[in-house]
């Protein structure tokens, strides 16, 4: 069997959910995990529960903040020393930036953002969306190991009955040479919520929101549901919302369990970016809006009337 490594990040002292999704998908493979920097002890339990055998924690002064060069060097040396052949990560801001550089260090291939895969410890094949989800294809490696793979958050789901691993944590100092692009400062965004790409529930607004102030009614709904607020390209181009909220082909591609589209007509490039959502609710005054063709539950009505009632109903239901 090949040696398998999964790179993990943390969110509020727990392993990011996408790491657990990946681990849970690899029954019988006995994967190891690598983390960089401070390791929250509460994360050990999650990782072991979903099957992590050895957990490598790499530390060093040059690794306090993320840098593509520093992280890549540290993980490169770990892969070399242990002969890992398949290396996985979530398709997060860091995973997307780090893994291509790492794969290039080995002159190896990388498969980005699969939404499903089969891997038995010796062969890998994945499925990934292209053209922002307008099309799917099968992807395999043709070159030599090591092989690098990133996985879209929320796409696999958590395994309901995972097989536990030993979860042995070992710390090591990583030696990192000169880094030519270094973080000087991190400017925190205003939102404490999960990013759209990782959110479990998304409430999105379109051109029918009319202005940026009206997004407050979506924020209220999102607060009740613990959701993240998104927007269509039409709303972003009209200046109602910033680009980092855009869902679609020239924004973010998302796969939440619940996507609530408010006043979004459903342009092809928006549908491409959200069609893999598990359940879609659409609210629109136009009964012929294309969004209704993708919606599990469609409400033909005025979002300014529907959303406040929806918020109240969820409040009652969730006892808030």
């Amino acid at each position, binding site marked *: 069997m090949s040696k398998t490594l999964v790179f993990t990040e943390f969110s509020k002292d727990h392993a990011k959910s996408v790491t657990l999704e990946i681990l849970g998908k690899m029954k019988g493979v006995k994967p190891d995990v690598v983390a960089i920097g401070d390791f929250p002890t509460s994360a050990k339990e999650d990782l072991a529960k979903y099957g992590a055998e050895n957990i490598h924690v790499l530390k060093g002064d040059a690794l306090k903040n993320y840098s593509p060069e520093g992280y890549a060097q540290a993980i490169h040396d770990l892969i070399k020393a242990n002969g890992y052949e398949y290396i996985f990560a979530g398709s997060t801001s*860091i995973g997307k930036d780090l893994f*291509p*550089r790492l794969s*290039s260090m080995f002159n190896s291939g990388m498969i980005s953002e699969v939404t499903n895969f089969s891997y038995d410890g010796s062969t890998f094949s994945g499925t990934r969306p292209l053209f922002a989800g307008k099309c799917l294809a099968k992807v395999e490696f043709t070159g030599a190991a090591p092989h690098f793979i990133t996985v879209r958050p929320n796409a696999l789901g958590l395994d309901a009955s995972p097989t536990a691993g030993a979860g042995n944590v070992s710390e090591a100092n990583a030696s990192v040479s000169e880094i030519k692009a270094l973080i000087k400062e991190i400017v925190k965004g205003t939102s404490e919520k999960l990013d759209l790409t990782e959110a479990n529930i998304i409430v999105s607004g379109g051109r029918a929101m009319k202005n940026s102030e009206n997004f407050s009614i979506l924020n209220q709904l999102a607060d009740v*549901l613990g959701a993240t607020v998104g927007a269509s390209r039409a709303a972003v181009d009209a200046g109602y919302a910033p680009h980092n909220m855009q869902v679609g082909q*020239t924004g973010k591609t998302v796969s939440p*369990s*619940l996507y609530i589209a408010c006043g979004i007509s459903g342009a092809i490039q928006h549908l491409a970016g959200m069609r893999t959502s598990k359940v879609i609710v659409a609210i629109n005054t136009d009964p012929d809006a294309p969004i209704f063709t993708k919606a599990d539950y469609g409400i033909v009505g005025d979002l300014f*009337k529907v959303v406040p009632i929806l918020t109240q*109903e969820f409040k009652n239901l969730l006892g808030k």
Partner: protein
Amino acid sequence: MNIFVCVKQVPDTETKIVPRADGTFIETSSIKWIMNPYDEFAVEQALLLKAAVTGSTVTVLRVGGVKDTEATRTAMAMGADEGILVEGDDNLDSFSTAKALKGAIEKSGKSADLILTGKQAIDDDCLQVPQILAQMLSMPSVSVVVGFENNGGKLMLKREIEGGSLEVYEASTPCLVACNKGLNTPRYASLPGIMKAKKKPLQQFSLADVGVTDADRKVKYSQFQLPPEKPAGKKFDAMDDAKLNSVVSEVVGLLRNEAKVI
């Protein structure tokens, strides 16, 4: 400053994608090609720098089909000085594309001080080529960049991460910067610009010319297909205010009891 901009030609975002019957790729015969939207921010950033740093040149690089050269011509019409085109096929993966771009830079006879790219191409959505190329050239790279300042060769770059937070990088040149929407407002090509572009030098090479072999293809695609269609959903009419409460209440009930997502 020798500035290189990598552009890709992709189907227009309004394009309906149709897989080939044999699943080897998508039908490309009737596609309207455009410059990858994120690459427009890279071209604009290159032109802003060229205007600010005397003696700079902007070379636009592209790997892909050569029947249509829309993306390269657009970049030159916007103001890039010259172009290099490497003829590629449908089966190039990110590694072989990055290697072709590296080869194209070598063919230019210039050393790159700065390489600008879009943060991702909206066709394969891999987000790999910029970082692979930077590593091949032993350069630092910063991706998803929404802020760019040049202080005499020291770059201050703002990279957007989860939740709208920003990482502010200081980087030395040579460097590769992968640009996101919001970095600048790309200019339109002017009519005189379009006329001038026709006379600008455009060199063309084959993959073999730039040293790409079959061994550089590391990833294989097959079984291109449309995503499965969802069965039709349930639709409720709430245009009449009298029905509002009952419709919303029913949908919330379905989300809990039928869809089980709440």
